[in-house]
């Protein structure tokens, strides 16, 4: 997703990432690709909460996460809603 992609343009995305620098880099890349970053979260629990609140088009999340629940568990939870 180097340059703006018509398929992804205007899509709303939530980034779940605990490393501040990586989070920043990811947001920059997503914005450069034309996506709207609606919310960011540092762990699985915050990720589930943000997804359920914002109802984004995309969720960018690691499988392995700090906190009580990992990426797969978080996905399972918000997909179940």
């Amino acid at each position: 997703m180097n340059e703006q992609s018509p398929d992804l343009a205007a899509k709303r995305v939530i980034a779940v990432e605990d490393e501040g620098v990586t989070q920043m880099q990811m947001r920059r890349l997503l914005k450069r690709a034309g996506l709207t970053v609606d919310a960011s979260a540092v762990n699985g629990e915050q990720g589930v909460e943000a997804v359920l609140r914002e109802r984004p088009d995309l969720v960018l999340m690691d499988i392995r996460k700090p906190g009580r629940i990992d990426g797969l568990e978080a996905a399972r939870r918000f997909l179940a809603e």
Partner: protein
Amino acid sequence: MRESEHFVQLYESDDFLVGSVSGFIGAGLEAGESCIVIATRTHLEDIETHLGARNLDLEDLRGRQRFVSLDAAETLSKFMLDGSPEPQRFRESVGRLIAGASERGTRVRVFGEMVALLWSDGNQAAAIRLEELLNDLANTHTFSLFCAYPAAAMAGEALAAPFAKICNCHTRVIPAESYADMDSADDRLREITRLQQMARSLEVEIAYRKEIERDLSRRESELSDFMENAFEGLHKSGPDGAILWANNAEMELLGYRPDEYIGHHVSESHIDRDVIEDILAKLRRGESLFNYAARLRCKDGSIKHVLLHSNPHFENGELLYTHCFTRDISHLHESNLIQQRLAAIVECSDDAIIGKTLEGIITSWNNGAERIFGYTADEAIGRPKTFILPPDRLQEEVEILSRLRRGERIEHFESVRVRKDGKQVDISLTISPIKDNADIIVGASTIARDITESKQQRRELAALNARLTRSVTETHHRVKNNLQLMSALIEMQKQPHRESIPMAELVRLGQNIQALGFIHDILTHESKENGDAATISVRGVLEQLIPILQETLRGRRLLPFLEDALLSGKQTTSLALIANELISNAVKHGDGDIGLTLRKDGNIITLEVCDEGSGFPEGFDPEVAAHTGLELIESIARYDLQASTSYQNRDEGGARVGIKFSIERKSHICAAR
């Protein structure tokens, strides 16, 4: 010519003989015959006395050569040669005397006792030979010869044959006076019967004695053979200690020939002077020695360890000789030495070495066992092995014993035993069956090693290993994060429509990377020490960073006021990066001295950077400012520290940026290092 007569008289008493001879010679002299008497000096005197009593003038008769008297021993010496009568000399001496008398024409009577002397001297053969020579003389000359032997000299089975020969040499044999003096024919018959009975009895007795003699001789030879060829050494020594006799075993033991040993002093083969002196002193005192240990030197110089049994023999209080048995125990001595060495090894072992029967009863218990289990050998030996087992492991001994009975060896079996003080001890056991000479299992030896310490070490090693593994994983994770961070910091420099990166940005990038390096260094060092990377002195890190930052201050001062706090690696890294960014911004956008303050209030950490410049413009919004440095600060503060940020202008002028966050739960607050 009349025939010669040669008769023999046996006599019991000298008086009878003297009377008999005096009668025979006296009658001859009275009848005008020539008489020769060759007798012992005593008999001669007595006979002459008797003859004188018959009114015979012996001197006159001697002068007319009618009466000749000679000493028997002296006469014998004239013709005896090498224990035998020499015929020629006989003829020249006695032969000529008798022949001369015979040739003078008168009848001749001779009494001779020389044969009796030879016989009594044990030279029966010479006596017989002399009788034969006299018979030869009787063949050529006529005379009447009277021989007499003491009856007592004829006694003895061995003399039966020579006696018969003596009898055969004579024309007449006259029994001794006890028979010859009997008057009636009936008495003589009775005496003959009695003598016959006595003769039979004696024959029986002789046969019996011969049997005993043979038996004794056989036993003696057996005993002699037994002693000579006994397995054990045996010697006899005199009162002075000289060896009188020694058997083969003793000489073979020491390697001496008989001539090198017998006759030598018993002490010569002893190595220990005090020992042999004690032995001899005891024997002289009449004491017997039993199992007396001594060392003997062999001919080849080797040493024999022996046990001596010796006893002295006294007669009338005087030591006659001693007997000594010498038992070679050198082989026992060597095997004792080997056994002692093995025992010493067992005793000195740090491991417990325990012997037990197949029923599990303890038979031996070394020092190692005393040390490990706390019981002395006296307390342990005789008790069942189970007494040091914890109650929940009793079944273990049953299994061990059944495996031992099958001949199995149990190696490096780890278990637990109970010490005397009640403490449990971890042990490693090696148990082997003990077999006797016939290969039958009679017991077992247990070698138990105290592994409490090594088990503890193993546990510690495992814990250390786990910590190192965690530490390596952690380090790996940090290196990866750092690389990612660096990549992100470089990526940040890429901006639309910008062809190159300003030097100031590269310097800031360099400082950030250096900060990462310091923190990594500290974290790695910490990991080495305690394996936990969550307690880092944030002041320590900032103090290392300050000299680097000062190089970029363009002559302005950096005034640090730093309290200390212990933070995790991640929080420290984040805080250092933020401090670097804030100071770079203050250099770039502010003026005057730059203050760097770190405060800790309970669990709350506050970092402030301020300057003396114009401060933030009116309506400053960090989000809107879209300033690269601020974006990085915001992102790190929010995501890595969950911190709140504040951007204010100071009353005294200049800007102040604050970062406030809680210390992560796992980090501890301690005194600054």
